[in-house]
């Protein structure tokens, strides 16, 4: 079993600040990622822009509020809206995070960490299956940056993520920056993480910048991708081959040109890594 998705090339996040540049200069990224919740609207400019973009490029829908790991029932109204959005815009895939973000009727609007236990694994697998049933499609689940580890976790994060993907038969969105940030914060080997992710499950890769706060790294999406993360990206390409890759930039957002340049840098790193792999096997 695996996830079967197309290779889309190198994309960027669709952010309102870049709407004018994207619409004026043509759609110069290979594909665009839209934050699902930002388009669950009744009307107005964002939906208009998404329609224009979708007419010319593939898009994917990336959610932040599915709250896969929460222990309250899934939000049925949210799932209905997400399905309607997916039916309207036909994304290449729909993704959200391996985390929880709501408790009771309240939303934290954050990607909160799970303990990596058998109890949490059984729970998340069941939730992914429910979501896939509701949406009528496989979903893609992303690893998050985390700042705490729990005393009662019984397996490493990569083992938990791989087990969720295998048991629920979903895809993986491998956020290479999040792997690096969590590796530094918790003292594990980032390369070991990549080795624990099965081939054939990774539908997409995220790259982003983070901030070094001295005592910990923070996943801020407000910097260029750091050199250490570029190195880890090359390792990921060497292991997983060509995977649709997207650079996230959500704060202190640069001009669209700079974001595109970062995306092109990812394309160059991918091309170079794959050429080396071919040379080694020739």
């Amino acid at each position, binding site marked *: 079993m695996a996830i079967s998705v197309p290779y889309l090339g190198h994309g960027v996040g669709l952010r309102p600040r870049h709407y004018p540049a994207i619409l004026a200069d043509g759609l110069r990224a290979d594909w665009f990622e839209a934050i699902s*919740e930002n388009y669950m609207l*009744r*009307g*107005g400019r964002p939906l208009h822009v998404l329609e224009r973009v979708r007419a010319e490029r593939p898009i994917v829908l990336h959610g932040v509020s599915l709250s896969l790991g929460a*222990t309250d029932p899934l939000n049925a109204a949210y799932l209905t809206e997400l399905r309607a959005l997916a039916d309207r815009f036909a994304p290449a895939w729909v993704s959200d995070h391996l985390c929880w973000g709501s408790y009771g009727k309240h939303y*934290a609007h954050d990607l909160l960490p799970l*303990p990596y236990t058998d109890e949490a694994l059984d729970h998340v697998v069941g939730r992914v299956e429910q979501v896939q049933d509701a949406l009528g499609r496989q979903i893609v689940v992303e690893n998050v940056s985390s700042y*705490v580890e729990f*005393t009662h976790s019984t397996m490493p994060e990569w083992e938990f993520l791989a087990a969720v993907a295998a048991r629920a038969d979903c895809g993986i969105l491998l956020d290479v920056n999040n792997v690096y940030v969590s590796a530094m914060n918790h003292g594990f080997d980032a390369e070991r993480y990549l080795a624990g992710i099965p081939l054939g499950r990774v539908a997409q890769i995220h790259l982003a910048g983070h901030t070094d706060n*001295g005592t910990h790294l923070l996943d801020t999406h407000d910097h260029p991708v750091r050199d250490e993360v570029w190195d880890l990206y090359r390792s990921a390409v060497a292991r997983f081959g060509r995977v649709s890759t997207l650079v996230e930039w959500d704060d202190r957002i640069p001009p669209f040109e700079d974001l595109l340049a970062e995306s092109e840098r990812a394309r160059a790193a991918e091309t170079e890594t794959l050429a080396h792999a071919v040379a080694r096997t020739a």
Partner: protein
Amino acid sequence: MPSLALRDLQASFWRSLHSGTADPGLTGVVLPTPSLEPAARVDIYQGMYFWRLHEVLREDYPKTHEALGGEFETLARDYLVAHPSEHPSVRHLGARLPDFVENHAVARTRPWLAELARLERARVDVFDAPDATPLAATDLRAVPPEAWADLRLGLIPALDVLPSAWPVHEVWAAPTEQPAPRPVVLRVWRHDFVVFHAAMDAIEADAFSAVRAGSPFGDVCEAVAAHVASETAPAEAGALLVRWIEDGLVARAGLT
């Protein structure tokens, strides 16, 4: 090693975020690092929770933020304790802020602040209201003169009308200046994906109120006639209609 059931862990984590105080149940199951104790690690999440939502409120209420300066943070902290988010989209987070401001200490010396927040909330709501194609002036050329009195106008959905005891449009333009009380009626609308607001004088406010009530254009003229000489009322009402069409407010015109 201490353990917590998933549900209990999430309850404890949420309490820590909402109260801003690390719950002992949570810190008891968080591992320390060489440089961070469990409570300091939880504090990373507490800081991210507050500042992310503070930023959402600041983006939705930029003028309220400008009027309050540093006191906005106090308002945001108190608001998030009273009204934590109940919706998957942050778009709804600040929906209750105008009513909350009305009874908050920051409004004691700024009696106009809740009205300013109401204007900002209306602008947020109009931003993503349903779409409609506005009528053009040429669409009305076919209406015969004798039919005008029975003509009913339908307005776009991306529209709100706000009566206020304060000139909040002037406060919006200069949030750090103290206004003098003066009743105004504002219309807030979206045209070509841009949100606008404008004050209406008493004639326009009454005429627009008749349109919103679904009254025929003859009643709109009567509303105008309450303010001007009756022979000039139709021309005045016609001029208002031209302005509304130019502003993209009218979506339909028909005899039913």
